[in-house]
């Protein structure tokens, strides 16, 4: 489907706005003395937004830009992180094209599952780490709570995302 120039300009500006806001959020949580449960990167929120806004091809570059931004605030290996983020992006994109988002609860589930999947990918691919059954349980507990809080924090922006989805 060919996109007219105005649509592309709109997509680009909203993408730049989203990534700029995300970079500002990362900069904020890297220096602010927030509790751990609140210092969340909110990557899943950007990816849910991207799955509504970006094509697969554009998404690959946008996710690459996300990884570079993330690399400024973390030592996480960018190549591996790109694989993780892009996998999550593809999964979300498939879900978004198959099922239309109609409410907050569905968006909450999308944000929650994206966060959970990305953290599990990171755990497995970065070998961090299944040292004991207790640790595994506690780590999954932390990941679960983290995904839940990220999904909760994404809800205030639901209307914005849903409105973009309806426009599309």
């Amino acid at each position, binding site marked *: 489907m060919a996109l007219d120039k105005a649509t592309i300009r709109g997509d680009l500006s909203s993408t730049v706005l989203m990534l700029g806001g995300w970079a500002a959020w990362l900069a904020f949580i*890297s220096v602010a003395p927030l509790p751990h449960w609140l210092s*969340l990167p909110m990557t899943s929120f950007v990816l849910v937004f991207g799955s509504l806004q970006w094509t697969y091809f554009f998404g690959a570059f946008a996710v690459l830009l996300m990884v570079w931004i993330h690399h400024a605030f973390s*030592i996480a290996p960018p190549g591996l992180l790109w694989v993780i983020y892009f996998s999550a992006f593809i999964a979300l994109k498939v879900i978004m094209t198959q099922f239309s988002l109609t409410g907050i609860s569905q968006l909450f589930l999308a944000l929650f599952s994206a966060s959970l999947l990305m953290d599990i990918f990171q755990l497995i691919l*970065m070998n*961090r780490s299944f*040292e004991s059954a207790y640790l595994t349980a506690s780590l999954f507990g932390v990941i679960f709570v983290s995904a839940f809080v990220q999904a909760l924090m994404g809800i205030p922006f639901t209307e914005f995302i849903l409105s973009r989805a309806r426009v599309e």
Partner: protein
Amino acid sequence: MLFPSVNTQKSWLGFLLGFLVLLNIYFHYTFDGTLEERGRWIDRSLGRILLPIQAAFHWGAESVSSSTARFSDLWQADLENQKLRAELQQAQLTLQKLSELDLENERLRKLLELKSKAPFRLQTAQIVGRDVNPFFHTVEINAGEAEGIERGMAVVCDQGVVGRILRVGRSSSTVLLVTDLNSRVDGVIQRSRVQVIVGGAASGDLRLHLLPRRSDIRPGDTIVTAGVGGIFPSGYRLGTILGASDDPNLVLGDAEVEPAVNFASLEEVFVVVYGAR
């Protein structure tokens, strides 16, 4: 005429005064007792007459006086209360400031002590940021190439070992904390001198890796840096052993270690700069 005519008020008053004086002289000489007691008798007699009047006047005056004094006291108390409240607030603020200064003083004393023990230059730096990815344990410090920082340098604080320099910028650096899974530091059990490898754990604590079985370690043992490898100077605290694995099927065991440094409240660190004074 025996008595002078008394037809004016002035004359009456003069007469009364003279009468009282004569009466006083009479009682003075006819009273059976000492002079002092005579005086007291007069005083008492006059007192009996005047007491009710005095009491009435006193009661009235006292009532008025106490009422006005009460209001005045309340007013003064209110003013004084306001003043004391203000002083208390200022004192509390000063106390907070003094408490902070006390803690800072204590911390700086420890740092100075640490600095005096170290045979190399310690570059002071402050923590300005943390890793946004919860799976990695790094911090950003405000010292870089401009301060002589290089990749691989050890980072310590008054509590013990913090980590090592991972990335260096012009005026900032990234420190890989000892609690990160990628970190490995040579250590030694202070009591038994057993050499150990201390690494990070996903839980945020430390872990002894590749620990030979039957090693002489006990819960509560302190681990310090061994000084092997040329990065960490020897004798800096790494942590305390919490417990060791006791699986008889394993050739090499491991042990959980509580870090010596409280990373949650860490603000200032020292980068160990070798070859400089």
